[in-house]
């Protein structure tokens, strides 16, 4: 098992753990942070590949992900604040208003 495989496994583990966190944690902020963790896992795999092949495409994508992550958090946090303003709780189970 070489370094590349270790790093890829780590990237996948971070992604899986992040997704698992989104599913099993009830706190909205924790769920958001777990989503960040997922993005980090993806970033790691991109950087690894970019470094391995010596091309910059992966790194460019990482930069774009940075922007997307910042944008995501910039819009997600106000939404969470708005939600809390209405129901005074961070519990995701409380927000089932969009039930079909």
């Amino acid at each position: 098992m070489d370094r590349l495989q270790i790093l890829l496994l780590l990237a996948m583990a971070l992604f899986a753990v992040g997704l698992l966190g989104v599913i099993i944690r009830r706190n909205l902020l924790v769920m958001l942070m777990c989503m960040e963790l997922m993005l980090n896992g993806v970033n790691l795999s991109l950087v690894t590949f970019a470094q391995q092949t010596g091309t910059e495409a992966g790194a460019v994508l990482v930069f774009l992900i940075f922007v997307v992550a910042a944008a995501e958090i910039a819009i997600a946090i106000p939404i969470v604040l708005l939600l809390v303003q209405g129901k005074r709780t961070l519990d995701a189970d409380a927000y089932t208003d969009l039930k079909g």
Partner: protein
Amino acid sequence: MTTVLTLIVLAPLAGFMLNGLIGARLGNRFVGVVGCGLPLAAFALTLVSFRALETGGAPLIETFYTWARIGPRVFDVEFYFDRLSAVMTLIVTGVGTLIHVYSLGYMKEDKGYARYFAYLNLFLFFMLLLVLGRSLLVLFVGWEGVGLASYLLIGFWFEDPEKARAGKKAFVVNRIGDAGFLLGMFLLFWALGTLDMDRINAAFNGAALPAVSASLVGILLFIGATGKSAQIPLHVWLPDAMAGPTPVSALIHAATMVTAGVYLVARMSGIYLHAEVASQVVTTIGLVTAFFAATIAVVQTDIKKVLAYSTVSQLGFMFVALGVGAYGVAIFHVTTHAFFKACLFLGAGSVIHALGGEQDIRKMGGLARRIPVTFVTFVVATAAIAGIPPLAGFFSKDEILWFAFASSRGGAPLLWLVATLTALLTSFYMFRLVWRTFLGASRMDEKTAHHVHESPWSMGGVLVVLAMLSAIGGFIAVPHYLEALLPAPPVEQALHHLETPLLVLSVVVAFAGLAAAAFLYGGTAARAARMEARFAGLHRILTHKYYIDEIYERCLGGPLVWISEHVFLRTGDRLLLDGTLNGMAGLAQRVAGGLSRLQSGSLHRYAFLVLAGAVACLAWSLSHV
């Protein structure tokens, strides 16, 4: 390079803008000053241009701006002022201004005062565009624009569905004519590459005729003219158009807009000179319209309807003149007709005003003493239209009759005979109107009779001016003035000695109509009632206007409704379109109903489904790739 012509056109537009946008807020005095002042300014500017035309001699041409440039073709908005446009512009601005002034009094109590003057100014703008445009394209814009203004003004009191319907009828009928007009324009542009009317005339008068049938173009353009000028078979809208305010009927539906068709044919005389068939069509349609409209007018009981059919009939006369090549004479009749018909309509408006809205001549009578100014002016105008010398109508109508008889471009004794008969009818029904309205015993009810009052001077004064014009208008030698532009047709030499006898005969005919009306309707009008009883069948046909509206309804309206109902609505719309849409919507609804159970609103469940889906996709791709 002057800009007088542009200013003539733009002055009423400015009035429309001012009155339409801010008039309602600034009060009636402002609306009146703007609404009448700017048409007056246009009239003054027309006089200035007229002087310039007479001193310079050559037509004035002003390019306003370039509308479009397609390849080598340039479409300019150009104004063209020659003697023909000069006559028309003077009529439009002159009579237009008078009618605006009259409206000041007539519409005083109306709550749509500003809107009324805005529309009236808008009409004037488009009418001036129509008569001053150099290109057929500009003329067409004005042509459609006056149609729009006419529609707006017929349906001015749109709260009444019947009046709104009359406006729509005018609009739809005019569209039929416009289709012909457009086709004619396309054909001309295809053949000549230009739409400038003086260039088209020059092309047809040149050595080599253009490679297009003059008769075809002529007939297509004439179809447009029949729509606008209310000739058979498209005449049905004009009588209904009387739903609008009376000054509107005077301005648009008597003096100016309806003569646009005559102007068009006269303007395009270069084509018609080379289009024998088209000219024959014009003559025939004109004659038939003149005669039938006159017969209908004999039995109508609505004062405005009588005048409307009279207008249709007089327009028929103008087209007869056009058909036999006497273009200048037709414009002459346009001029005199504008004077006396405007006077008649405004007089009728004054009567209606005096009676508080009553239009039925069976409920009038004996008004001569109560409203003397209206009476005197009305009688003068009636005598003018009847052709009693030396009033205006006598000169123009006599010239039309003479050319119908003697023109070598299609004049014929039969033509003359029918036209003279129509003139007799004209004289008869007009004097019948005078007798029923102003003379004899009063048939008004107490309440109406009590309220009868002479109109204010803004109305009476206008009536007097128009009556004077009707009296002396015949001495304006319009045909002579236009001779250089629209020469009179050659006359059969052998018939020259008959000119004076025919003249005498037409005077006799006018007085015969007067005598017949006096005989039938003088006193108690018992003779008229007996006549009516004896010819009950004929009377019924005439009262129902030959059932033309009913025939149109049956032959065109009915099948159209049937097709719409059965083919388009039931099969096309409900079965095909609605069926497809409803089916698709139903399917989507059922699928969504099933899927909505998945939508629990729980974020965790959604995320879990994402996870499960990701695993499934991965597993599938690992086992297959």
